[in-house]
Each structure stands twice: as C-alpha cells, then as structure tokens.
C-alpha cells in the first residue's frame, strides 16, 4: 500500500509540475513543486497556500481476487487567499487555475502507472500498476478571504506477494 501511495504522489507531482512549472513551494529552504503529502511532513499549524496537500483517508482491501485489490481515498486539499498585491480580488481565478491544473494532471492518459518501490536505491519497478478514477471536487469552503477546496480521488492497486 505504501508503494502505491508513494507512486501516486511522485506521478501526480511530476504531472502537476509539467502542467504549471511555476507553481512551487519552499519547504525547509528547498524549492520544489507545490505538492506535498501531509503525513510525510513535519507537523505544523500553518496551511501552505497555493499548494496541493495530499491526505490519505479511506482504505479498503478486497481479498477475493488472486491478488488483494486495495482501494484508497486520497484527499487533495488546496487553498488560496489570492495575491496580496491585487487585494485578494483574484482569489477566485487562482482557485479556478488550481482546479484546472489538478483536473488536467489527474485526467491525462494514461490513468495508471507502474507501481514502484522508492525504499530502494535506485527505485524498483514492481509487477503491477497503480490506477485511479475521476476526481470528485467538493464545494468551495470560504473562510474570510480564504478559498479552499478538497478534491477526492480513489486510487487502486493490487497488493503483491511479500509487499508491505
């Protein structure tokens, strides 16, 4: 399961960076594409704006097939206050841009990728794929000047023998 989570994150990060290379964040002094997995970062009360935050929630395992089918829900959260230089009046447009970038990255074919183990150096390709469905975009949550949305996507993989 962890390999599928890692593979999905790396794939989504590369796709989002290709869609909009200028969307970056600085995490502990290093600039990288504006995508992160919350559970892999240092705990913080601060919400990174104009960035995509992945949160893994629901997990289901169907043991009926020869290889157990694993279904995981991935919440992709993003928020913006708009540009301060524009008085925040462009926050709707900035959120729409993030909606479009995420939809393009998730919807681009193929919607599957070879599952990879990143716990080895170099990363090792495994025998099955990770694949995902359409993103479900929740209504915008408005908190003062902040617009925030959660998009949920189901990610599927087969649990290979001996895989953790």
């Amino acid at each position, binding site marked *: 399961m962890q390999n599928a989570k*890692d593979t999905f*994150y790396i794939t989504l990060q590369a796709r989002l960076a290709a869609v909009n290379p200028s969307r970056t964040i600085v995490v*502990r002094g*290093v600039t990288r594409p504006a995508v992160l*997995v919350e559970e*892999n970062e*240092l705990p913080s009360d601060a919400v990174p704006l104009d960035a995509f935050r992945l949160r893994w929630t629901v997990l289901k395992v169907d043991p009926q097939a020869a290889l157990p089918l694993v279904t995981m829900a991935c919440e992709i959260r993003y928020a913006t206050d708009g540009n301060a230089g524009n008085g925040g009046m462009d926050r709707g447009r900035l959120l729409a841009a993030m909606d479009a970038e995420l939809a393009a990255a998730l919807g681009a074919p193929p919607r599957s990728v070879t599952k990879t183990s*990143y*716990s080895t150096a170099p990363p090792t390709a495994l025998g099955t794929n990770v694949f995902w469905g359409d993103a479900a975009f929740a209504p915008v949550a408005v908190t003062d000047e902040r617009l925030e949305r959660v998009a949920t996507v189901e990610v599927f993989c087969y649990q290979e023998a001996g895989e953790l």
Partner: protein
Amino acid sequence: MADLLMDSGAAVRTANVLLRGVGGRTVLLRMPAMASAGDVTEQLGLATPQFQDLELAPVVFRSARATVTEGKATRWELLVAGDAVETLVGSMGYGAAESLFGATFGVLIDGVLMTIESTTASEVRGSAYLYRLVVRAPLVQVV
C-alpha cells in the same frame, strides 16, 4: 527617562534586564536542517531531517490562561528578549524573526517539545525589544 525609552537600544536593554530580573531562563529552539534538494526520500517520509537545538535566553515562561480544559492543550506564553532573537536571526542567516520562528519545529522547555502557535513583537521605532510567543503543550502532556 522618556527620551531614553524612545531610544530602541535602551528599550532592548531594559527588556533584557527586566526578563533576567524576574527569573529569566533558557529554552531551546529545535530547528530542522534544510531539506535535501532533489532527494525525494524526505518527501516520502523515508528519511527524517536532522535537528539542532539553539539556546534562547533570557525568556520568561508562564501560563497563558487561567483555566485548563480537559482534552485541550495547555497554552503557555514565552516572553523573549529582542536582542536574543536578533542574535539568532543574524547567526542563522534568516531575514527576519518571523522567518526564524516559522522555520522552528518547536520549543524545548524542561524536556517537553512545545509547538509555537503565534508570535508577536513589541517595537520601538521599528525595532523589536520583546517577543511574545504562545506555545502549546502536546496533548499527551494534558492531564
């Protein structure tokens, strides 16, 4: 006296002396090392950053609220001398105190790592002489 206090240097020194006079103590700021550029292992939770603890003194540590609610983290207040913060900001190469506190993972006080919730600065002529940090104890410490 009024002229002296209008001088930001005097305000900084006064705050420093006052904090020492009311039992100023030392706490440690726990700072994570910079992330590894081009290395995804930290992004995947496979590797953890190194931490370094930086001394911050003089500070006064006190309870920030009178009542403690069950299941809620206790909040504490740290009053920090402005010159101590400026020294750290300069030595660590940060542009501002806000950047330093923003990059801090927590404040180690008597062996308990507390999370910084907010920071405010008291200033004279644009120069900070005192910082007030609201810190939160971890929930496991709540009795």
